[in-house]
């Protein structure tokens, strides 16, 4: 005791020092994390600024017409973005229309119905699908998938749908094998793992008590899924879909290989088309002249805006669902 009293003063001192050190490290930590967060904003701002600045010559030359003109002529330097915008949206739409039901069904099977021994192989296969580089999808699409579509699926579609009024235009020939539909199908395969693995993870969070209670009152598996699992997890599922949509909108290499790269809008989804990112990837290296380069950068800006709008729409949708639930 006495001993302690003698040394009282230095001990207070050292405690102060320790506290000071802790406070200092806390401050440093706060500054570091804040800097990291602000860096994101700065980078995003710089990207927007660079895109806007780069696309100014094109926007000045073509005005709003850039958005709704189909012509893309490097010879006369008349550029309009309608064909790539159309291709981007249609291919992503096809991808989502196919990947969402299939992905959610896979996730449901894995969490609710799958025998234990099959769970791991399927789960790992889905994760591997997400790890395949997009160039591999492109090469596979061009060498294997497109010839298969051209020789079997597309002639069948064209012939069997010919008498049906709207579908006959939507699936009009000739069967090239590559085109908007092929790109959409490849994209569907590419976004499938995102939707599946996120859906599976959120389906796993549903408390077993809820499901067991539903089964207890005599619900079928479909009813349990429709009225218990899905309402409980829809925020997560929509998040997964948006992540997939984001990838589909921006995917470049795989699409470039199989879409046919034609600056035309066609009523048929078997016809070749182009997307924004495929156009940029194809033409940027050889774009000579300021207006051409600037038009390609303006395409990038449009893709940025489309992605932003999709994210904003997703947020809005989620906010509305949450309000309704509350």
């Amino acid at each position, binding site marked *: 005791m006495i001993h302690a009293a003698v040394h009282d003063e230095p001990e207070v001192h050292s405690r102060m020092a320790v506290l000071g050190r802790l406070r200092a490290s806390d401050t440093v930590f706060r500054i570091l994390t804040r800097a990291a967060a602000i860096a994101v904003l700065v980078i995003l701002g710089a990207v927007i600024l660079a895109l806007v600045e780069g696309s100014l010559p094109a926007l000045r030359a073509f005005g709003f017409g850039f958005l709704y003109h189909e012509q893309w002529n490097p010879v006369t330097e008349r550029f309009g973005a309608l064909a790539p915008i159309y291709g981007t949206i249609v291919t992503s739409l096809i991808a989502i229309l196919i990947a969402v039901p299939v992905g959610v069904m896979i996730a449901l099977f894995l969490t609710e119905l799958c025998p234990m021994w099959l769970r791991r192989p399927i789960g790992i296969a889905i994760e591997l699908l997400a790890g395949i580089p997009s160039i591999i999808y492109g090469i596979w699409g061009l060498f294997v998938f497109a010839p298969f579509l051209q020789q079997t699926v597309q002639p069948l579609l064209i012939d069997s749908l010919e008498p049906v009024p709207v579908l006959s235009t939507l699936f009009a020939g000739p069967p090239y094998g590559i085109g908007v539909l092929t790109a959409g199908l490849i994209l569907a395969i590419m976004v499938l793992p995102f939707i599946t693995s996120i859906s599976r993870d959120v389906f796993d969070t549903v408390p077993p008590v809820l499901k067991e209670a539903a089964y207890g009152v005599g619900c079928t598996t479909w009813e349990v899924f429709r009225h218990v699992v899905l309402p409980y997890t829809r925020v997560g599922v929509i998040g997964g879909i948006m992540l997939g949509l984001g990838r589909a909108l921006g995917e470049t290499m795989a699409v470039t*290989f199989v879409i046919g790269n034609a600056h035309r809008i066609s009523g048929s989804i078997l016809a070749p088309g*182009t997307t924004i990112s495929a156009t940029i990837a194809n033409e940027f290296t050889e774009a000579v002249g300021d207006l051409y380069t600037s038009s390609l950068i303006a395409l990038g800006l449009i893709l940025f805006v489309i992605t932003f709008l999709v994210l904003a729409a997703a947020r809005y949708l989620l906010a509305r669902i949450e309000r309704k639930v509350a």
Partner: protein
Amino acid sequence: MKHIQALAAVGLMLAGLGSANAAEISGAGATFPYPIYAKWADAYKKETGIGMNYQSIGSGGGIKQIKAKTVTFGASDAPLSGDDLAQTGLVQFPMVMGGIVPVVNLEGVKPGELVLDGPTLAQIFVGDVKKWDDAAIKKLNPNVKLPSQAIAIVHRSDGSGTTYNFAYYLAEVSPQWKTNVGVNTSLQWPAGIGAKGNEGVANNVGNTKGAIGYVEYAYALQNKLTYTKMVNKAGKVVAPTSETFQAAAANADWKSKPGYGVILADQPGDKSWPMTAATWILVYKTPQDAAATAEALKFFGWAYANGDKMAEELHYVPMPTNVVKDVQATWASEIKGPEGKPLYTASK
């Protein structure tokens, strides 16, 4: 004795390493000549120890890089105009040539069996001639059995010197092409599908029944595609071979354009292949790094003198001797170091 030889070999290798560090020539541009530039660079490095780093990023990229002075030389499949050369202070010269050939996928038709002429080719790519048994094609091929099959057009989707030269030829022979489509490294194609790179076009033509496309000669051979013969300016039917490509080059008037910027499409002469194309090198008249440019010129001089066989192995066409002489005279008179000393002397 053996020991001495081994020592000498090691010594040579070390010397090689030393000079490789001292000088590395850098260039960027066209993808079409990349295989031969890489092969030359490899052989040159073995001989002299001086390496060359060539990035095949495309002609447009090569022009941008040399204008930004990030490389010693730029390479382009489309020549710069005289005004552009004067403004930027660049010297342009042709390095090597190649041939562009139409390729088709028709059942029962062998390579070199089908004959096309310029106007018909233009009509096919405009989309006016839609079927293989069209009268225009039938007239040129009375002995070939042509199916009543839709023509599927395959063109390049990326900007390319091949497209530039192909379009230039079609514009020469078809006024309709000239006004409606025009000439550039990328075009607004009236019809067909786009594929990336020579290999992309080759693959799509190979896969699609009834397809027609255009590729560099080497790709047609590698992929065993059915190339066609062409009717040339003199009205003669010619097959794509080194001989007919060289004939086109020999018949061209190289001095008629600044920077030897002659497009070899539709040249006169009985044996000239109508779609022959040269590829050019760009260097500065008074470069910032005179030593690097001098090394680059030495390399190009070496390639002119020793590279013909390698070029022919890869199905490129070497420049004619008289053109090489003119080019080397241009180097000696126009490309100068900081004190006005020529960077190239013909004796080397």
